């Protein structure tokens, strides 16, 4: 199930990638769409995307992964239409 906000219709055949807060500022971008043909994204994981995108910081110890707005393991295989977010250290409340 892909859950999206109304204003951001997912592009078929892509993975939507979101960055937040300090991570977004260090990377210089907040959103990208990564091509992923349906059925052909098998094997592509958040960890691989993290490396390919050359994102700053350390995945795992500092940065958490959410897939379709749920915390997820960085090695979860992604599928076309997924919303992937990299979350820097949380500081709410």
């Amino acid at each position: 199930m892909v859950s999206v906000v109304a204003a951001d219709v997912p592009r078929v055949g892509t993975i939507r990638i979101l960055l937040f807060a300090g991570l977004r500022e260090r990377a210089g971008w907040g959103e990208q769409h990564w091509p992923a043909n349906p059925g052909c994204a098998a094997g592509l994981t958040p960890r691989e995307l993290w490396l390919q995108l050359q994102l700053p910081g350390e995945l795992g110890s500092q940065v958490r992964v959410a897939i379709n707005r749920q915390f997820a393991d960085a090695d979860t295989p992604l599928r076309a239409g997924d919303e992937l977010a990299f979350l820097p250290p949380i500081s709410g409340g």
Partner: protein
Amino acid sequence: MSSPFCPQSVGADTEAMLIKIDLHSTGFEPLVVLEHWQQAQSGIAASAAEAHFIGRVRGVAADGCALEALELEHYPGMTEQQLEQLARDCCSRHGVNRCLVQHRIGRVLPGEAIVLVAIGADRRGPAQRCCQELLEALKHHAPFWKREWRSDGNREWLSGNTPL
């Protein structure tokens, strides 16, 4: 033991769990929100035990500088979903039935409320423990990020929460 003079009450146990969660992009008054929340629980149905926590913006930044404002970024969609899930898990773990979570987003000024957690229960222990635990849960597992706007012009993202 039951007699005509001693009717069994229909207590809070039989009620559904009631969770209310809101994000505020402008200031909210914790006591006003609490009043509305309590008004939905009138008379005998009122919780015998209620625990609240209010968190406000300090006037001082992490480095000791005066703070102009705190900026609260979040992940729309995931935030609401996470808060709902954290609240539901925490309430069912502690067997409490009423839960209120209010959280600011956007620019928050010193002295303003950032977060309000309130728990209504039949016993003080579960109410207090659930309130404490839910606060910790949302501080660490709801996608919020704080940036300090300091009076010396610095803007710094915080990399964690103040110690418990």
